[in-house]
Each structure stands twice: as C-alpha cells, then as structure tokens.
C-alpha cells in the first residue's frame, strides 16, 4: 500500500471513530459541557385557556340544549335590560371528583356563566379548574323568555380525605343582535357568587401519615423517602410540531415513593 493510501485509510478510521464517539446534541451529558449548547425541545402550544372546559350553545333548532332550557317560553318582559335572578354556586365531592356547579336564571338572549372549582389541602391551594357555558338564542326568537343555565367544573380526585373544594362563579346576561364580532349589545347584567360554605372531606386519619421516609413533621431529616398531595393536568401533543391533541381535566392525588 502506498503511503498516501495508508494516510487516507488512517484519516477515514479517525473520522469513523470520531463519529462513533459522538452522540446527538440532546444526549450529550450536559454536566460535562463547558460551552452553551441548546436543548432540542418543542414545548406544546398550551396556555391557561387550553384547560378551560367550555362550550357555546347556539340554539337554532327547537330542541333544548344540554345545560340550558327555556321555561315556559311565553314570558314577556317590558324592560330592555337583561336580568339575572337566583344565581348560585354549589360545591361538593362525589365518589371520584370534586365539583363546582353554577346556575342562574336570566333574561336576555345571551347567557354566560363561568365557574371555578378550587381544591386545597392543608390550607394550600393545589389546583383549580375553570368551566364556562354560554347560551345564545337569536334575538328575534327570544321574546324575553326566562331561561336557566348551569355549568359544572370537575376536578377528578383519587383521595378520600383531607381535601377541600371551594367555588366561585361569574354570571352574565345580555341582549345581542347577533353572536360574535362587533355586534351591538345592550342591557348587560353581571353578578358573582361564591360557594358557601366550602366543602371538606373527612380529616385524614393519623396513620395515613407517610412512614416511608417523609418524616411527617417533628423528625426532620430522619426519613428516606418523600410524598405529597398534588394536582396535575395531562396533555398529549405532537413532539415535533407542538400541536396539542388532548388536554384532560385536572386530577389530584397522593404521590409517594413507590406509590
């Protein structure tokens, strides 16, 4: 073999060896880097609004939509203002969820209600879920009917003690010539309500205190593991484009090592 060919072979060998020893940027052990290196990451396009449960119901057909109905349909009113009566917020726990339910009775061809369920543990807020519902009846077909509207915000839970749920709501009603855009509107009414009292689960028995390394207070630094009561959302997305496929309701539970 000629010297030139031997040198070329050695060069190629070094190149292959270098290629083998290198990992893609994401997999470089960052602790060993001395120079800034970018993290390849596509954070999904989520905002606070992504997690709001909501719907706008436009009543174009005579069937009554879920969550809203007209009472009688023949109640005529003289005033040009919308009105909210009987607005309320109630909270509670069911077998596997906590809820805040808001309801209102109103006049106006657009009714809207927002409610927020807030879950706390040991006096600290750990999560809140917002829901809204808007009900629209075409202005010309409303005739001032009194309507009921309600919405519930759910927080799924897998814990049977120690949580508290609180709720507050905003209630709106108005007249609007048509829905969306800069349509003329008038006679807006608004009101806020708060659940009272908030609802508590039963207190956790003392034996539920972790014995897995969290010291449970008073014996700091003697345990080996840890735990917490926490709430989180669950989102699936396209890891390349960041497009969100699905966002689930808030969920609260205990997390402990091995649990």
């Amino acid at each position, binding site marked *: 073999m000629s010297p030139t060919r031997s040198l070329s072979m050695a060069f190629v*060998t070094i190149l292959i060896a270098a290629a083998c020893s290198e990992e893609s940027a994401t997999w470089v052990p960052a602790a060993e880097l001395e120079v800034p290196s970018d993290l390849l990451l596509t954070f999904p396009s989520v905002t606070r609004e992504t997690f709001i449960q909501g719907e706008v119901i436009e009543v174009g057909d005579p069937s009554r939509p879920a969550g809203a109905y007209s009472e009688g349909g023949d109640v005529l009113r003289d005033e040009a203002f919308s009105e909210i009566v009987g607005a309320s917020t109630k909270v509670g726990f069911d077998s596997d969820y906590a809820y805040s339910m808001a309801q209102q009775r109103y006049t106006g061809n657009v009714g809207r209600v927002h409610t927020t369920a807030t879950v706390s543990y040991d006096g600290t807020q750990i999560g809140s879920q917002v829901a809204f519902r808007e009900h629209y009846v075409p202005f010309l077909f409303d005739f001032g009917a009194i309507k009921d509207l309600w919405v519930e915000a759910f927080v799924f839970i897998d814990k049977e003690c120690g949580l508290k749920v609180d709720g507050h709501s905003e209630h709106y009603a108005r007249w609007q010539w048509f829905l969306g855009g800069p349509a003329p509107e008038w006679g807006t009414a608004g009101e806020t309500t708060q659940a009272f009292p908030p609802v508590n689960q039963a207190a956790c028995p003392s034996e539920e205190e972790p014995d897995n390394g969290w010291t449970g207070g008073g014996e700091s630094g003697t345990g080996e593991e840890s735990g917490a009561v926490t709430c989180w959302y669950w989102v699936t997305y396209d890891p390349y484009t960041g497009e969100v496929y699905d966002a689930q309701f808030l969920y609260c539970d205990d997390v402990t090592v091995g649990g």
Partner: protein
Amino acid sequence: MNTYTRLALLLVAAVACLGGGEPSSLAAQEPGSRPIFLAMPESFPDLDARVVLMREQGRDIIVLRATDAEPEALSVALLVLARVSRERPVPADRGQMIPITGFVPTGELTAEKRAHLETTLADLRRRPMANVGNLGLGRWMRYRER
C-alpha cells in the same frame, strides 16, 4: 494486512458505528432509567403550573420555574414522573405533558435528599445560558441520581 482486509475492517467498524450509536439504547430503557433533563427557562410558559413535566421518546424533561425551583418542587416532579412512568408508557408518536398546578408535601425531605436536590438546582443555576427549545433562553442540564 492487505488493503482489502483493511477496507473490510473499516466497513465492519462503520456498520457497527451506525447500528450502535443511536440513542435507541436510551429510548428502550425501562421507566426510571430514561435520561431526565432539567430545564429552567428565563420566561416560564403562561400556565397555571409550578412545574411542568414532558415525556417524549427516550427522555423526560422537567421544566422548572426559576422563581419556584426549590428542592420540594423538584422532588414532587420526580415523584410524579416516576409514577406516570410506571403507569403510562409514552406512545411512539406522541409526547405527554403534565403541568403540576400545585402540591403540599406530606412530610419533610430527608437531609440527604434535600442536600442532593439543592446541589442539583445550584448546578442548574450555574449552567451557561442557552436556548431551551422554543421556550427561549434558559439553562438546562441532565439530572443525575445520587
């Protein structure tokens, strides 16, 4: 060694390199042994979250708030990550994001664990500023267990 033998050896080396150099060795790891990256963007996303977990093929990422990057937050993030790793595998074509909106520790961290997490967070804060994907400027590093 003649030229053909050397060429053959080089070819074998190249094939071995292409086959073994992919991060698939990481992607195929069991939950808990996947690499975990910590990211602390200068500007945290506009979310009702104290910390955000991201799970993708072959890696997990914990996105921390610079103003809330404490041992408890990192500890809870690791706990939730360990739990969801046990319960839900990451689909091949989807990422999973878990914004943790809040938490209350039910005890206290052990001194040893707290020290490890504090050291880790201090290390993260010392990292050079870089791009944290589309979150913009921030710091990041690979998390290492004790």
